[in-house]
């Protein structure tokens, strides 16, 4: 018998019934997913773009071992610092330079005593894999064959700041400034070289190592280049400070170090 209060066909209509049924299934699935994700801590990690591949690999093991879930936000460290200043949800930051953490520390946004420098890196000059241009030293970048050079935005993105510092030290910056294509982050500089839209780029050695579409023209010796340092720190406003501290300790440990080194990073200790 049809309920008189119901308009014709509403809940007895087979199409409507099947929609309700699928909605119920979707709801059950969603609640299930939500419940399982609540059991373990979710750790929001803001990490420098250059760490993308190494951290993703580390996360696979870490998620399994700790039961926590790492949620990454990869961007230029300048962008990350800015997001944290504006109150973005974050538990741990891994920056590609000390200056960004200095700024956050000054504003009281870091959990005191959690800051630690864990990694180092080196700069390389890369060219597209099929490039015929011969670059052996930084001064070759001034040659007429090189029309554009991609690097991280040189006033904010760490990789760009390092690259600029290196070129300035050699007295080449003024000369090359007109060729510079500044990018969002170091991976965008890498992509610009990969696509062949620029003749050369300055990126971290670790970025060059993950790409088959670029070749390293030369590596800046650690002694000649700027000091590159990757510090991490727990964010003061973290909702999971203990999980964040645990992750921070893990990233500075042997197993994580082995992965970082595989990707070309230099462990600090």
């Amino acid at each position, binding site marked *: 018998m049809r309920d008189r209060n119901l308009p014709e066909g509403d809940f007895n209509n087979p199409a409507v019934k099947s929609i309700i049924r699928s909605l119920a299934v979707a709801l059950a699935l969603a609640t299930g997913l939500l419940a399982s994700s609540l059991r373990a801590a979710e750790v929001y990690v803001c990490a420098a773009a250059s760490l993308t591949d190494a951290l993703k690999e580390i996360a696979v093991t870490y998620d399994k071992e700790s039961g926590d879930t790492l949620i990454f936000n990869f961007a230029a460290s300048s962008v990350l610092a800015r997001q944290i200043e504006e109150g973005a949800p974050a538990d741990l930051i891994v920056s590609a330079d000390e200056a960004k953490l200095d700024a956050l520390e000054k504003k009281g946004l870091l959990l005191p005593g959690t800051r630690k420098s864990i990694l180092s890196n080196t700069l390389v000059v890369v060219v597209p894999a099929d490039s015929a241009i011969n670059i052996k030293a930084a001064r070759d970048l001034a040659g007429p064959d090189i029309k554009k050079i991609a690097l991280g935005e040189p006033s*904010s993105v760490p990789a760009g700041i390092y690259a600029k510092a290196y070129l300035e030290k050699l007295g080449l910056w003024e000369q090359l400034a007109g060729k510079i294509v500044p990018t969002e982050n170091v991976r965008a500089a890498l992509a610009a070289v990969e*696509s062949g839209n620029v003749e050369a780029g300055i990126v971290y050695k670790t970025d060059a190592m993950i790409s088959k579409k670029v070749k390293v023209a030369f590596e800046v010796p650690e002694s000649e280049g700027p000091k590159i340092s990757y510090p991490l720190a727990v964010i003061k406003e973290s909702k999971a400070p203990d999980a964040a501290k645990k992750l921070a300790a893990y990233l500075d440990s042997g197993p994580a170090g082995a992965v970082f080194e595989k990707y070309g990073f230099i462990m600090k200790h």
Partner: protein
Amino acid sequence: MENENWQIVYFTLGVSILSTLLILPGGVALAWLLARPRWMGKSLVETLVALPLVIPPVATGLILLKLLGRRGVLGSFIEKTFGVEIVFTWRAVVIAIGVMSFPLLVRTSRVAFEGVNPRLEEIARTLGAGELRIFFTVTLPLAARGIIAGTILAFARALGEFGATIMVAGNIPGKTSTIALSIYQFVQLSQDSAAFKLLGVSVLMAFGAVWISEFVLRKRSSIR
């Protein structure tokens, strides 16, 4: 405001005016075609033209980057034939904002053409006028207000384009940095005051453009 910021404003105005002028003839011609009765492939062309309005601007940018890049079909052809580079230059900015504002010009102009009473064209035809003459002396003047409004809208869209531009032109200070790209950059650098100055300028310009286009359109409807 500093000279550097004025340079950004002038550059943005310059590329927006240039791109609007470049799309104007083709846009008006296409709008007229789309206002005509059914023809083969009309709905396909209609959809293609509307695409930049509805797909993410960065997706449009990606398509342009793949086409115009040094290894892209068009990009490599142009570089070999004319020796002109496109990506990461001001030309890429003009192309990106042109593509993004094209649908606005076409759609607004099309409505204007559709509003032209076909009987007037019919009368001109019976009086012996050729199709070209009918277009320039009857159709175009009657649709002019709508086309002007569409042009201004397209121009306003060009002023604010971000996603497609950053993909094909990057954000190179003094070379491809438009107002929208600079605002983004200034925020990244925590230079909020500079960002707000440019924000103010862009609000004023956009307000002016939209207000003028509304004014032009309203005037037409009051005449009827």
